[in-house]
C-alpha cells in the first residue's frame, strides 16, 4: 500500500469525479482509484470538502447527490448555457396552420368553433404549441355551458408577421376569389407554398458552430 499526500489525493479525487459519467461515491473512490493507497475515510472527506470550497467561486460546483459526488454547472448560468442545446421543431402541420388561421381571422373563438369549421377535433397539442409560442392566448370565456376559453392572437403574433393590426391581414375572401378565378392554380400554389416553406425551414436548421 502506497502513501498519498493530501494534495495528490485532492487531484486524484477531483479528476475521478470529473471523468466519471456517474456520481462517484466514497466507496467507489476507495475501490478503484484509491485501491493502492493507504488513505482514511476522514482524509477523503476532507479532500472532498476542500474541493467543494475550491469550486465555490467557479462556474461549476461540486455537489453531493444520492449516489455520490458530481460536478454540475452553476444554476445561475442556465439561461445562457441552455443555448448550447437547440432543437429544431418540425414544420407545422396543416391542422396547426388552419387552427392558427381561424384564430387569427375569427377571434375571439372557442376550440369548439374551430372544430365546427374544420370538421375535425383540434388536438390539445396544437393549442399548447401555439400558446407556448405566444402567438395565441385565452382572452376570456364564452358564457355557454362549459364556459369554453376564447382564443385570440397576441401582439407577438402580429410582430412575427410584421402586421400593425389584424386588419392588415390579407383579405381571405378576395384571396379565395382570386384563386377561384384561376381555378386549378390552387394546387400549384399549395405546392409552391410547401417548397417555399421547406426552403425557409432549411435556412433555420443551420446549426451553430
Amino acid at each position: 500500500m502506497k502513501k498519498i499526500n493530501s494534495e495528490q489525493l485532492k487531484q486524484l479525487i477531483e479528476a475521478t469525479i470529473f471523468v466519471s459519467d456517474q456520481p462517484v461515491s466514497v466507496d467507489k473512490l476507495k475501490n478503484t482509484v484509491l485501491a493502492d493507497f493507504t488513505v482514511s475515510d476522514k482524509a477523503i472527506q476532507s479532500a472532498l470538502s476542500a474541493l467543494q470550497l475550491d469550486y465555490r467561486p467557479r462556474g461549476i460546483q461540486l455537489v453531493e447527490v444520492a449516489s455520490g459526488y458530481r460536478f454540475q454547472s452553476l444554476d445561475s448560468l442556465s439561461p445562457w448555457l441552455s443555448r448550447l442545446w437547440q432543437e429544431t421543431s418540425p414544420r407545422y402541420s396543416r391542422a396547426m396552420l388552419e387552427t392558427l388561421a381561424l384564430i387569427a381571422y375569427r377571434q375571439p373563438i372557442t376550440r369548439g368553433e374551430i372544430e365546427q369549421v374544420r370538421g375535425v377535433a383540434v388536438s390539445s397539442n396544437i393549442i399548447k404549441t401555439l400558446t407556448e409560442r405566444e402567438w395565441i392566448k385565452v382572452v376570456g370565456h364564452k358564457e355557454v355551458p362549459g364556459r369554453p376559453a376564447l382564443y385570440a392572437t397576441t401582439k407577438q403574433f402580429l410582430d412575427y408577421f410584421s402586421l400593425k393590426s389584424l386588419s392588415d391581414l390579407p383579405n381571405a375572401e378576395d384571396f379565395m376569389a382570386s384563386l377561384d378565378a384561376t381555378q386549378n392554380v390552387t394546387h400549384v400554389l399549395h405546392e409552391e407554398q410547401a417548397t417555399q416553406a421547406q426552403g425557409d425551414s432549411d435556412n433555420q436548421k443551420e446549426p451553430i458552430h
Partner: protein
Amino acid sequence: MSNSDESASTLATPVQQPLPLAFVNGEAVIEKPEDLYIPPEALEVILESFEGPLDLLLYLIRKQKFDITTMPVAEITRQYMEYVEVMQTLKLELAAEYLLMAAILAEIKSRLLLPSRSDEEDDEEDPRAALIRRLQEYELIKQAAEDLDLQPRMERDLFSVSVEPSADIQPVIIQPDVTLQELVLAFSAAMQRAAAFEHHHIAPEALSTRERMSKILQLLNAEQYTPMEALFTAEEGRAGAVVTFLAILELVKGQSISLVQAGPFARIHVKLGSFEAP
C-alpha cells in the same frame, strides 16, 4: 546520442532509432555478421510480427547494424531468401509481397555481378537505389507510427471530462417559420371546406371587429365593472367608435360580457361573464 556523421544525416532518417546508426560502416561488421541464425520456432513468432517484406528487410539490416545506404545486398538477399524458405517450409501463409521482394533482390544481386557501364546510368534507375529509398521511406513511417502510438491519447492517457448541466437547463427550441401566405391559404382552405360541407354559414365579419373583441376581453375582468366609455378612444374617431360598439354587441350576444345600467341615461358598466342577479 547524436553522433551521426554527415552522410547519415542527409540520407538516413534523423528520427531516433532504437539501434544506433553510428556503429555502422565498419568493414569488420560486414565480415563478421553475428547472430545470423535464428531457430525456426523463434522465427515463426518473429515472422508474425513483420508488417511485410520491407519490415523484414529492415529487421535484417538493423539486426546486423548495417547502414541502409551501404548494406551488402548479396548478404541481405541471402538471409532474406533463408527466411522466405523457412516460411515456406513452415507452411506459413506467405503473402505475395514477400515473393515479389525476393525477385527484386535477386535482380539487384544479378545486376551487381555485371560490370557497370557508365552510359547506362541515365537510362535506368539503379534498382539498389530504388530499394534503399523504399527502405528509408518505410523506416520513416515505421518510426512515425511508433511516435504516434506514444502520443498521449484519449481513453488511454487522457480522459474527457463530463460535467452535468444544471437540472434547470431547458433546450432552446427553434420554431418553424410560417409565412403570411401560408396562413391565408390555410384559412381559405378551411373556409372552402366548411362551405363545401355546408355545416353552417359563416357571416363575413370585418376583421377589425373581431380584433376589437379580443382587445375588449383583455381590458375587462370578471370581478370589477368597467365603465363602457373606457373602451372607446377619442383618437380613433367615429369609425373606431363604431368598431368598438359592434364588438361590444357581438360579445354581449355571445354572452362573453355583460352590461349593466343603474337607470335611464346612467353610466353603462361592463364586466366579463354573463349577467348574474345580485
